[in-house]
Each structure stands twice: as structure tokens, then as C-alpha cells.
């Protein structure tokens, strides 16, 4: 047969290849384990009251700084924290914390898992300052944290702090950089499982000037989105006067940054005068006026820069006739996540070129409601009372969100950034090759 041999050749090769490729299945057998790390809510400094919104009454918590390491059910949706920070088995839900000095000021924050770096853009260490930096070591080994600090002059000497296992520290901000009016603090966890928080509280003598919790930003970046800035007015006689905002910016690198601030509001997007191509000196904290002159009560901003920056917006507020302030900080890009907002009824704001978000509200009674948001530049949604959790089910790219809470005690702000993200780690396997370069 003339073609017998070539045919046999091709068939045998083909068969072996087919069989081999069918057998070749065991190669990629890497296994991964995924979990949500526990989140930590900060301690409650003296005189303050803290309520933590939890997704379920069965949510498991434990108190940091106590001997007991066992997790117990919270038995409530609003956990009234006494003193010690709590460690919460998040399972993907980010609790929102509401802290007030009753009748004086209020602030909100997300509870977060341990972080290697946290930027706190806000606060002061002058004579008015009563602020605190709270470092919680939820781990069972001693931790060490470096605190880097910038003020209007520049970078201050780094402070190294060690924290005992399963404990926390509250450090007065005024002790870190006495006299500083504009602060940016960066905490770097060198060892241990540490989550940091910052409370900015001010008063002059017995007169309270307000306070807020400054939410953290995980890193400096060239594009910063601050989605929700409370824009309040003050009545001066018969007319209303918009309260001014100030933008605090730090360029931590060595090269000056050229920044442009864009405002997203229901009245459209625009760049306020003087904030296009503005040069910000590196190494020291800069404060820029931000007076967009808007009729609307809320807006968001985007800051673009040619160098990595961190930024936040300081907004004075008037609530029940009392002065307060709020720090609106940068938010991460919106990702599917769940926020526990029981008892807070926040107003959520989303900014982006095109805001397209799908939310699911989970009510106390077990009812669920899906909300689809589709808007340009900015969208605001008021979460009704009785909502236990808000789930971001779907979000397009380039959308950022934050929540604003207004109560009698004051305003609070929290970014819609997941405090606990799914961590995927490969299941380790024994392999002696680790012992060779």
C-alpha cells in the first residue's frame, strides 16, 4: 500500500498526542484558599459613644485587649461599644461605626482589617487639638508600627511604636507633632496585625469646635476621588452663606505635583477657578481653598496629579446651631462589597464619568430591595431607615462612593471602601525546592 506507512505515522502520532493531552491534566493543580480577614473597629476614647452597625445579631465579635480569644455573638445590630476595640468576623461585610461626643460632634468610619499602610489626611496638633491616633493590634504577637508625620513645614521624625499582643494604644495627636496645624499621618505596620484610626477633635478651652473620625486612605495615588463632601450653609441674617471648604494635599514624594481639581455635582462637572494645574510643593502639607459656590448640598471631587498625592477635604458644618466639621477622605474604586449600616440611614453618593451601580438593600425584616443607579457625574441615594446592609452588587469601572450621615450631633462621612476584602492565598505545598536559590 503506497500510503500505508505515512498514514500509520500520522495516525500513531495523532493518537499518542491525543492520549497524552488527555492525560495531561494533573499539571495545574494549585489550590487556593480564600477568606475575609477579620475587621477591627477602634476603641472608644473617653467621653465618646460608639455604635457599630453589624449585619446580624449573630455576628461574631471579640474584644481586643482582653484575655478571652473566643468569638461571641453580638446579639444586636447596633453594638454599643464601651471601651475596647472589637474584632469582628466580617465574612465580607464592612461595619460602619458611628462615634459621637453627645451633642458636640459626630463622625463615621468603616471598620477595617489590618493594613500595612494607612494615610490619615487631616487633623491638627495645635492648642485646639484633642485628637487621638488609635492603634489596634488584633494579633496575638507583639506588633511594631512606624508613624510618619508631615505638617505644614515638612516631614517630621518618624516614631516607632510597639504594641503588645492583642491590645491597643491611643496616642494624643498633639504629642506627635506639637503645634502643627495641618497634619498628614502615615502608619506603617512593620510587624503584627495592626489597624489604625484617627479621631480629630478640637476645642478651645471649654468651647467645643467639633470633631470627626478621619477615614484612612491605603496609598498615595495620582488620581484621588473624594465622592461626598457635605456642603452646608450658614444663615447670616436673612441670607445664607456657604461654608468654605479647604482641600488638604500632601505630595509625599520629592517632586512637586501639578494638580487639577474637578468638581462633580448635580449642577455639572467643572474645575473651580485656580485649581487647574495648581502646583503643590512636595514634602509639606498644603491647604487650598475649595469654594465651588454651589447651590447643591453635596458634591464630590476628583484630583488628578502628575505625582502621587494624598488628599482630603475639610468642611465646617452647622448642625443644630453647633459648629462641627467633617473630613471627606479619598475612596477606593467601587467594587462589589457589603456595608453594614443598621440604624444609620446614610446618604450614599457616587461619582464618576458615568455612574452605573446596582445596590441591594437588606432590611431588618428580611426584605430585600434592589436599586439600580444610572446617572452622569454624580448620584445620591438616601438609604431608608430599617436597612441593615447595603450591598454593592455591580459597579462599573471608575465609580467611587461614600456615605454621609447627618444627625443631631453632627455629620459623619465614610468611604464606600471595603474594610475586608477577599484574600486569596494558595494552599502551601511541600517542596524541597524552596531550599535552593
Amino acid at each position, binding site marked *: 500500500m503506497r500510503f500505508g*506507512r*505515512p498514514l500509520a*505515522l500520522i495516525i*500513531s*502520532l495523532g493518537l*499518542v*498526542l491525543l*492520549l*497524552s*493531552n488527555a*492525560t*495531561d491534566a*494533573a*499539571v*495545574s*493543580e*494549585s489550590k487556593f*484558599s480564600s*477568606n475575609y*480577614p477579620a475587621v477591627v473597629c477602634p476603641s472608644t476614647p473617653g467621653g465618646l459613644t460608639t455604635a457599630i452597625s453589624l449585619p446580624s445579631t449573630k455576628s461574631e465579635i471579640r474584644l481586643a485587649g482582653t484575655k478571652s*480569644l473566643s468569638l461571641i455573638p453580638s446579639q444586636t445590630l447596633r453594638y454599643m461599644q464601651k471601651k475596647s476595640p472589637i474584632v469582628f468576623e466580617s465574612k465580607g461585610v464592612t461595619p460602619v461605626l458611628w462615634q459621637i461626643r453627645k451633642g458636640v460632634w459626630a463622625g463615621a468610619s468603616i471598620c477595617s482589617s*489590618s493594613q*500595612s499602610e494607612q494615610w490619615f489626611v487631616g487633623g491638627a496638633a495645635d492648642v485646639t487639638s484633642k485628637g487621638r491616633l488609635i492603634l489596634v493590634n*488584633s*494579633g*496575638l*504577637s*507583639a*506588633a511594631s508600627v512606624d508613624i510618619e508625620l508631615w505638617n505644614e513645614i515638612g516631614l517630621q521624625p518618624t516614631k516607632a511604636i510597639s504594641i503588645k*499582643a*492583642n491590645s491597643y494604644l491611643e496616642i494624643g495627636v498633639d504629642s506627635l507633632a506639637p503645634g502643627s496645624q495641618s497634619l498628614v499621618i502615615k502608619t506603617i*505596620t*512593620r*510587624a*503584627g*496585625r495592626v489597624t489604625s484610626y484617627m479621631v480629630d477633635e478640637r476645642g478651645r478651652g471649654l468651647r467645643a469646635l467639633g470633631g470627626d473620625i478621619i477615614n484612612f486612605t491605603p496609598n498615595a495615588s495620582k488620581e484621588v476621588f473624594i465622592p461626598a463632601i457635605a456642603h452646608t450653609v450658614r444663615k447670616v441674617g436673612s441670607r445664607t452663606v456657604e461654608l468654605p471648604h479647604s482641600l488638604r494635599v500632601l505630595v509625599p514624594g520629592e517632586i512637586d505635583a501639578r494638580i487639577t481639581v474637578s468638581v462633580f455635582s448635580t449642577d455639572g462637572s467643572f474645575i473651580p477657578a485656580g485649581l487647574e494645574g495648581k502646583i503643590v510643593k512636595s514634602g509639606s502639607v498644603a491647604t487650598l481653598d475649595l469654594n465651588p459656590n454651589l447651590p447643591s448640598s453635596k458634591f464630590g471631587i476628583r484630583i488628578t496629579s502628575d505625582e502621587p498625592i494624598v488628599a482630603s477635604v475639610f468642611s465646617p458644618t452647622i448642625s443644630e446651631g453647633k459648629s462641627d466639621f467633617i473630613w471627606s477622605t479619598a475612596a477606593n474604586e467601587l467594587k462589589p462589597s457589603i456595608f453594614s449600616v443598621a440604624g444609620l440611614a446614610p446618604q450614599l453618593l457616587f461619582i464618576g464619568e458615568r455612574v452605573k451601580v446596582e445596590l441591594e438593600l437588606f432590611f431588618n425584616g428580611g426584605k430585600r430591595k434592589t436599586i439600580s443607579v444610572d446617572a452622569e457625574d454624580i448620584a445620591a441615594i438616601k438609604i431608608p431607615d430599617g436597612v441593615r446592609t447595603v450591598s454593592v452588587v455591580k459597579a462599573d469601572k471608575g465609580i467611587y462612593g461614600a456615605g454621609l450621615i447627618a444627625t443631631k450631633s453632627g455629620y459623619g462621612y465614610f468611604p464606600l471602601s471595603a474594610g475586608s476584602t477577599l*484574600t486569596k*492565598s*494558595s*494552599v*502551601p*505545598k*511541600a*517542596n*524541597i*525546592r*524552596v*531550599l*535552593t*536559590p
Partner: protein
Amino acid sequence: MSSHRVTAILVLHDGQLWLPEVVASLTSQSLPVDSILAVDTGSTDSSAKLVKGARIPVLPMDRDTGFGEAVAHAVATLPISNDPQSEWLWIIHDDLSVDRLALENLINEVSSRPNVAMAGPKLLGWHDRTHLLEIGISIAANGNRWTGLEPAEYDQGQRDGVHEVLAVSTAGALIRRDVFEQLGGFDPNLDLFRDDVDFGWRLYSAGYAAISVSSAVAFHAEASANERRSVDVAEAFLHRPLLLDRRNAAYVLLVNSSWWRLPLLTVQLLAGSIFRSIAYLFAKLPGYAGDEILAVGALFLHPAELIRARKIRKIQRLVPSGIALKFIPSRWSQLRLSASRSAEWVREQLLPSEITEVQNPSLLDANLDEEDLLTPANNRNWTALFKRPLIAASLFLFVVTIFWSRFRIGSISGGALPEQPSGVSALWNTYFSGWHSIAMGTSAAAPTWIAMLAIAATPFFGSVNFFITALFFFAPVLLALSAHQFLKEFSNNRWLTTTGAVLYALSPVAISTINAGRLSTLIILLLLPLLVKATRGWFEIEDFSWRRIFSLSLLVSILFAFSPLVFILGIALTGFSIYRDYMDSNRGINVALFNARLYRRIALTFTPILICAPWSLELIINPNRFLMDSGFLLQGGGPNVALLGNPGGPGSLPWYLISPLTLVLAISLFSSTRARFIAEIGFVSLLISIFFSAISLKGNGTNIATQLYPGTLMVITTMTAIAAAIAVSDKLRERLKQTHVNIRHISAAIMLIATATYALSSTLWVVTTAGSAPLQSGREVVLPAFLAVEKDAKTMVIRQRTVGDEASLNFYLARGRDAALGDPDLAPPNRDQITNAVVELADGSGLTASTTFALNGIKYLFLKNPTDENLVRIIDGLGGFTRASSTNAGIVWKISVNTGKVLFTSLAGKSSVLQVSESEFEVTVPEPGTLTLTENYAQGWRAMQEGQRLKRNRSVDNLPIFEVTQPGSVTFLYDGSLRRALVSLQTIIFITVIVLALPAGRRRREIEDSELA
């Protein structure tokens, strides 16, 4: 007219074969001998009759009379001399023929040298009269007879002249009679052999000298030494000349040397005897081996004889005996001679003398000039060397290697090759040890290739690093040389075979092997061509001698030790061959033929299993390991890449640099020449390679299923493809020229283009990507130095490894060092308890991980950089781990729970760590309780207290625990007796096979006269 008077003393002992010429030469001297006297020591042949027939008086003596005694007897019958200083004795053996001018020249030289009392001629061979036997003699410190000559040295007058020497042979020695009598003649204790050296030594001690005179020539048959006649002297126990020679050599040294040299001499003689007897055993000459030992033994058993002889010498001595030391060759001279002989032998084996082209110009050649006949026919200069294909190819490959391996100068590691210990002693330790401290420890048998590597590295100053580096560096050249040995069987066109050899050295499997440090495959690449060449005629194996079978077994053993897959292939080939033999032998009717083949095949296939036992027996228990090579389990490229003749994996050529191997095999399958058969083998091998590449296995210290590397199979594919290509291409040009353009022309063109493209692209690739090859020198170590300070401390190492695009977290337990050569092959499977602790550590749930680590004696946790921040946070947060350091290398945590090598639990349940003493594996137990050794459980673990063995149990964690009933010190040891016994058995088998494989030595009586001289 000479004033000297010469009496020739002819000693007879069964010498009728030589005597006619001997007598004729004596009687025809240009300076006539004054008198001739013969002494017959009981010859059983017609020696005495022959001599008497020549009118020479014969003194009869007993058959067991020694040579010296016979001469002394003859001298005693001589009349008293009036002028003793002018009377000379000329000692003539019955197998010595003297040249006509011998005596005259000897007398001439001694006449002008009054201190000379002994002179001897230049001794040439009896049969080959150009063979220089002796021109003066001495004795080496090890007792060897020292002539200072090359073996079978051709006499061209290069040693001519009159030289002062320690002694001359008694054959033809001219000795002054008065000195002979003064010294008491030859030592009666030396019946035969070495009496000459002894006499010379005594001569010098008495203030005289000896000379050799080259103008005096004699031809010696050396009948006794060459076992041409029996040695019947009284001292010749068992009539063995070698025994007598060695005994006498030792005697001469011991009685003549200064007393302070005796201890060293004794050691030298004993050691020399042992070494020589071992060598004789290897040469399958047990009789000679026995002679060596008996000779020295017999002498040391009679010390009184030595003492008496030394006393006599002391009396006769005028000058210290050290005067003769200048004639005793230095050890350097002996070494130099041995080295020169060895080098010559190696050169002869590697580069056998080629018959140079003989130009035979015809006388009819019109251009022939008469002067042409005067110029040497061979006028090649050294540049012609570079035109020889193999040398040119080797040079080319060497240049390529310089660029290719430029990052592999120095200690190399990476890929499949772990770090190597610096010296062979470490390899031997690993090999002989019954317990290996790898991870939690193992009693697995060390692979045989470790011992082979140790043997191979020994000539490289015992440096394993040096050997491995040199092996990988010169691998391309060595591969080409090895392949050429195989390929030259397929064509006489050396340019063609050399090109094939170069392609072999640059084949995908060779590149992958060298770049990835695959030692096993490299050995296969080097030795398989030689094995295939050596097994030529495999199907007619009955023609193979048993010696050849065992030689081949040794070669197969090496291949098997490095790549156990060879055994599987061998079994398959043997099975097929036995079936073929059965058919060949008329279905078993020709039993003799069938059995002859069967026994040889079985011996060849199973001897390697025996040589490599006990390691090979462990393979049988765990057959997966037959498929794995030595070293780290490094993945191959999978079946699709294998189809292209490329084994793939780290360091291998990218798939798009397609080698022509598959194409060549495909084309050759349609050949009508023998290339087709070769290609069929190659094709089957390729198909198996493809399938083999798809298999994933765990082992060699990893529980990650890893795609197998088809190195061994791909070597076969490569060899056969190149051989087929050569067989097809041989004389192809002539064949193609004779035909019109057809499919053959097209196939040849395609093959040529594909080969040229591949050769060029692969060469460029290896040269340009040398820096990214896994095998490199000067790599940093994994474990920080401070973790290696505490000897044998256990450190759990966790690091991220990326294989392809996939990053995974891997871990292993280190024992104070990185993985070393042999460790992957011995690495025990990881214990589930520890694995679970690490897994829980990684996912953050491992609250008890540190306790588990402590229980197993793990002191440190090391997270190698680049670290996973999340994992760092988890470990920091889990508790039980205290940060010890954070450096560029990574982060180290100390396990908070106190732990160590030996844990003690009191009867009350209180646990503590016991301090192990630095010198010995010993602890002090404070009270009765239980001792836990943090090593894997094995039968060999022992704990001894006051000479008593403590009761051993296995804990639930698979650790050995010992019950202690009283306080005191407890010593731990691993009893490796079984391992030692098995290794001893293996050594015996190995030596036996070597002895069987070596060529048998010949007794001197079996050697042809023409070969001797």
C-alpha cells in the same frame, strides 16, 4: 696483553635450550676467558652433558642449591690467587649469551678504575635483541626492581656509556675475586633473585663501586623470572618465583638499610604488598596476590635471620650503608614514571596511533624529482590538526561553550541541581549514613549515584564542586566526542559524522540538560552513545564474552543509578530480545543457543540492580521513582513540545526553535537503507517520550504533581535521529547526482535547510540567553547565615515559587542549611501534621501551628522574600511566633514555645526541652519520664542509659519516644548496622563485577617469548 685473569663461572639449571649459544659466546670472546668452570644445580635435562661436551669442567650440586651457593662452591674450588686484585670472576647464567667483545670491554673499563669491584654488561633481550633489559640495577623503596628504563625500551644507544650503578645483574657480572671472598660472596639467604642488588649494596658499604659498561653487551632470556623453568632452590616455597623475588626484595631492604629507616620501610613494604595483591586480585591472579602477602609474611616471621644478616653487614661495613641511597630512586622518580606510563596508556586508548598516509610515488611519475624521495613523506604541520573534523568541531564547541557557560564558572547550582558539598567525604558520609537529617529525617537508602559521583570527583582533588562545574562546562565538547564514537559506525565521512556529533551536543535535550543542571540526563547523554556502541551485535549476544557482559553491566549500572528509567527500557528490550531468541532458536529447540543468550541477557539486565542495591530495592517498593531522575523534580515541557524533539521545561529551547529531529525521523522512516530501522527505534522512542511527558508525579521532596521530564527517552530519540540522518546522508550526494530531481532531492534539501537553521538559531539562542539559564554559579543561599549557626536546627521555610505563570506557596523543613546534592532523592514525604499546620498558618486559622511546630522540634519560621504581606500579617497575628528578624532575605520568626531536639515529659506531665551536649548526642535527664526525639520514627533509633537500651515506642505523632526510669545521662544514636551491612554487600558485589569485567592478567609463563624480550 691484559694483566687480569678471568674465570667464568657458569651456573646450570635446566638450561639446555640456551646453553649451546651461551657456551659458544663464552668460548669466542675477543679477550679469551682464562678458565671456565660450570656448576650444575641438579639439572634434569642435558645441560651438564652439553657443557661437558664443550670440555668445560662441571661441578655437580643438589637441585635445591641456591645461585649464590653454587657460585661460592665454584670459587672455593679455584686455586689460590697470587694477585687477587687482578683476578676476576665472570658470573654467567645458562640463559645468557655474551657478545664477542663483552669481556674485553669490561676488562678495559675496570682496568682504569681501581675502586670498581663489579662491572656488568648492557643486557638486551634474548629474542628481541633491541630490547634493553638492564644497564645497571637498583631497588626501589617498595622493593621493586629498578632499572630506570621504560617498559620494552628500544635500545638506540641512548643509555650508552660507563655508569656508576648500585649493582649489575649477576648475569654477566664481572666481580673481583678478592672482594667477592672478602664479602663472603652472595648472601646465602638469597638463593635466587636480588642477590645482585644485595651484593652491590654491600660492595659500596665496603668502600668499592660497581659500574655498568654499555660497550659490553649480553643477551639474557631471564628464564627463571619469566617462569620458563621451575625454581627449585631451597627457599623457593611452592616453587613460585614471584614469592621468592618479593621476599628477597624485602630482605635486601631490611638488612642493608640504616636502622632508623626500618619502621618506614616496614610500613612501605606491607602497604606495597597489600596494594599489589589487590591489583593482582583485580587482574584475576590470586596466586600472585598470595605471593605478595606470603613473601612479606614469611620474612617477618623470621626476624632472627634479618638480625643475623644485619650483624654480618655491620662487620663488613667500612662506610655507612646510606652511601647506596643515591642509587635508590626517589619516590618522585617512581611517581613520574608511573604517571608517564599511565598518561601514555590513556593516550593510546584515546588517540590510538594512526597509520600515517604512506605516499608511494610511482617511479613513472613524470613530476617526480629525486629530491622528493629525500623529503619526509609525512610533512604535516600542527595547523593540519585543526583541519581534522573532530578537532575543529571540538574547538568550535569550546568557543560556543565559553559564551554559553560564562555564568557557570565556579560553584554551580540551580534548576535540578542542588548545591554540592565541597568535598567527596561529605558524599561518602551521606552514602554510608543510615540516617539522613533531611526535614524530619529519613532512613532511606542513599542512591548509588552518590557513591559514583564521589569516585568520579576524587581525581578532581576530591572537590565535588570542581568536578560538577568541569563536567557541565565541558559537557558540549564531551557530548560531541561521545556521540562521535557512536556515529562513526554509520559513515566513513568524518565531516558528516562530526557534524552529527555537534548537532548532538547542541540538540534540544542537551541544551535543556546543561541549562537546567540535569545531572542524570547529562550522564545519559554522555554514556548512552558509548553503551550503544559497546552493545553492537546485541541480538547475537552469545558472541559476547562474559567479561564483556560484566563490563557492560557496569556501564548500565552507572546509567541506571542516574536514571532508573534505563532499567525499565532494559527490561523491555530484554523481553523483546528473549522472544526473538526463542524464535531464532527454532522455538527453543536449539537450547544451547537460547540458553547462551538468555543467561547473558539476564546477567546484563539484573546485575545493575544488584550493584545498585539496596537503593534499587527501594525503587521496586516505590516504582514511581523508576520514572524520576536524580535531583530536584523539575518539570518537562509536556507532550506537545516533546513532539518537536524538545523535552521542554526550564532552560530548554523555546518551542519555536524547532529541531529537525522529528522531521529527520519521519523522512528516514521511508528510507530503503538501514536508516529505516534506526528511525523506527527513534520513532517509537519519540512516541513514548510524548506520552511520558504527559505524566505528572509527586516525589523527590515535593508533593506537587510535576510533569515528567523525558530526558532519557529524548536522548534515544536524538541519537537515533542523528544516526538515521547520517545513514541517509552517507554517499547521498553521489546517489542524488545520478538521478533526476525527485522526492529524495526535495527531502534532502528540506532536511539540510531545517538542520542548518536549527544549528544556527540554537547556537545563537544558547549564547544570548546564557544569563537566564537556571543553572548558574554564585547563587545566594536561601537560609540566612544566622539560621545556619545552630547546627541541625529545624527551620520551616515558606516561600513563593512561580512555575510558568502560576505562583504558589511552597514550604519545606530546613536543617540549618540549603538543600544539598542527594537531599531531594532522600527527602522523606512530609508529615500531614506539619503540612496541616503550614496550611492553617497560610489561611489564618492556625492558632495551634506554633505548638505543632514546637512538638516537632521546629525552632524557626522563615518567610523568604518576596513575602506575601497578607501572610506576614497572619503570622504576626496568630500568636506563638515572635519576630526574630526582618532582612532583605526575608522575615524570621522564632517559635515562642521552647523546643529542641529532645523533649522531656516528666511523670507528672510537665514538659521541658533538654540541652543536647555539643560533642555527643547526649542529654541529662532530671527525673523519670519520657524522652521524645523530634525525628521521624525509625527502627534504628536507640537511647542508651548506663549501657542499657531504653524501651522505644512510637508516639502518635510518629516520633520515637523512650521511657526513662531513672535520672542520668542518656545517649542517643542511630544504629546504622543494617545500612553498613548492605553497603558492604554492595561493595563486594561491585568489586566482584569489576574483577569479572577487568581483563585477566597473564602469568609470566603464559606470555610469549617475543613479548617478553
